């Protein structure tokens, strides 16, 4: 079979309804799930399959590169333009701390923002979920659960009856 997978997108009216549905689908061993909510939620995060984020490590790496780069810049520049201020050593490390700290923070923050875009594959304005007219409320007051049709648990009966049972107020199919 060579059909590209699609999404079955179910809309829920309340946060608790979506959490209930997600728990039910997880109990039924569905794994290819996506959730779209207007705000982050600890309950959903605990139930959602998938790895935890690597963004913290990326920021740490960015900070280390930025900080050591800043220190090297000062160390190098203080030698390249040797300036004897009252006999103080050219490598006056305590005076190099503030700039090192500031550039550590700066690079970590910029790398963090770039990592968010990279990990979330944003900006992307044409994602298929936007094809569903109801999806406009995913950023407002509705909660969406998508089951991808390549989920191994999906049978010929489909997942729709189960989603209806969990309280979905609308169900439709969008591209994968």
């Amino acid at each position, binding site marked *: 079979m060579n059909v590209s997978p699609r999404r079955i997108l179910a809309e829920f009216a309340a*946060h608790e309804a979506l959490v209930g549905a997600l728990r039910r689908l997880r109990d039924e061993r569905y794994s290819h799930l*996506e*959730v*779209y*909510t*207007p*705000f*982050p*939620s*600890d309950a*959903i*995060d605990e139930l*959602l399959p*998938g790895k935890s*984020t690597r*963004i*913290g490590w990326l*920021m740490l790496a960015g900070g280390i590169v930025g900080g050591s780069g800043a220190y090297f*810049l*000062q160390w190098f*520049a*203080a030698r*390249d*333009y040797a*300036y004897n*201020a009252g006999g*103080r050593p050219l490598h*006056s490390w305590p*005076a190099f701390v*503030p*700039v090192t*700290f*500031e550039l550590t*923070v*700066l690079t*970590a*923050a*910029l790398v*963090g*923002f770039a*990592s968010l*875009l990279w*990990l*979330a594959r*944003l*900006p*992307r*304005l*044409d*994602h298929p*979920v*936007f094809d569903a007219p109801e*999806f*406009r*409320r*995913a*950023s*407002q*007051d509705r909660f*969406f659960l998508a089951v991808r049709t390549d989920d191994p648990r999906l049978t010929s009966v489909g997942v729709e009856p189960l989603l209806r049972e969990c309280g979905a107020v609308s169900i439709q199919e969008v591209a994968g």
Partner: protein
Amino acid sequence: MSPHHSHATLPPDAEPLVGAGENIATVEAMIARVPLAGPRPLLWWGGFAAAFLVVVVLVTAIAWLLLKGVGIWGIDIPVAWGFAITNFVWWIGIGHAGTFISAILLLLHQHWRTSINRLTEAMTLFAVACAGLFPLLHLGRPQYFYWLLPYPDTMGLWPQWRSPLVWDIFAVSTYGTVSLVFWYVGLIPDLATLRDRATSLWRRRAYGVLALGWRGDAQHWRHYEKLYLMLAGLATPLVVSVHSIVGMDFAVAILPGWHSTIFPPYFVAGAIFSGFAMVLTIVIPLRAVYGFKAYITDRHLELMAKVLMATGWIVAYGYFSEFFTAWISGDEFDRYMAVNRATGPYRAVFWLLIACNVLVPQALWWRRLRRSAAVLFVVSLLVNIGMWAERYVIVVTSLHRDFLPSSWGMFSGTRWDWATFIGTLGLFFALIFLFVRLLPAISMTEMKRFVTTGEETE
């Protein structure tokens, strides 16, 4: 908790942080209404036009400065820093409350930050923008500002890394950039909400492009929340570092009145003090005009008043410490500086700052006054004035009489000094007006989460 209790009888922690009956729909409708529908247009246009007229004054003052040079200001030897540095320190201090509220209160799990963090972050950005103007204009030849940056120039010169003034460039530019990133990251989900609620095509497109196609994917929220927490963790030492470095601009000099180890922490406390005053100055009219009293409650005002009083006492301790150190050092010049501040030609400014920063906040010992928007508004204005006076006293009285009486002098601001300073006030408030009209002044995402699950973004 019975809804019949009046707030005054509840213990402080039990008093709700949002009005009764608020839910996702009401929160969003109330907050999104301002950027999308523009309620109270007469007030908005009136306020914006007034602020914009002052921006014209600023542009004129800067244009004249660029034509004539810094001689149009009152600065000269010995007082070479004058208004420019006073204004720089004042503005950058005001910015600090925004980061304090967004980052430090987030890490401390202070839920009340949720209603005010967006606005105060915007305030930070605009205050840093105003602050950044002054050192650049004060350069005399602002077209060469890039000489401050480390770049491989043909003369083989590098910045002097041992100078706090060089640290300042890195601190302030990092602070501005990180504040912008923090603010924008917080705005992305709200921009998506505005994209989806907007009715006109151009608004949908503008908000849509700015929202970067955010769709609220729970996997994205995972990255997002971690990023937000990490940025708060980074911004917390950053905010302390920035005003510490500004404090060191002074403390590293050997001048009596500047050469003091108390400067970095005392500057940070003063920054948060003046910043909270400016937050109150903005928030009190804002919540009245746009009906945000259900989100920025009297309890919020009271909590901010408490921060104001606490930081006010730290600042008061700083004043005491300066005088005590001058006395106990036995140093003739330090002692003269202290006497000259309180009784010399600038004594009126000194006593103004003591009255505004030490005496006025004592009104906040009374709960009834802490909860009165009118009283707090007046207190906040006086603290703003007092903190400007403090910076003026630190800059001017220390410089005008140093070691040798033969090199003493006097300083007073010229009309162009005042035009530039008041001009930046216009710029600041014009930007605040634009922000309130175009973007959600309270984070809808965080408020919706708070009214639904009681959780806070972290």
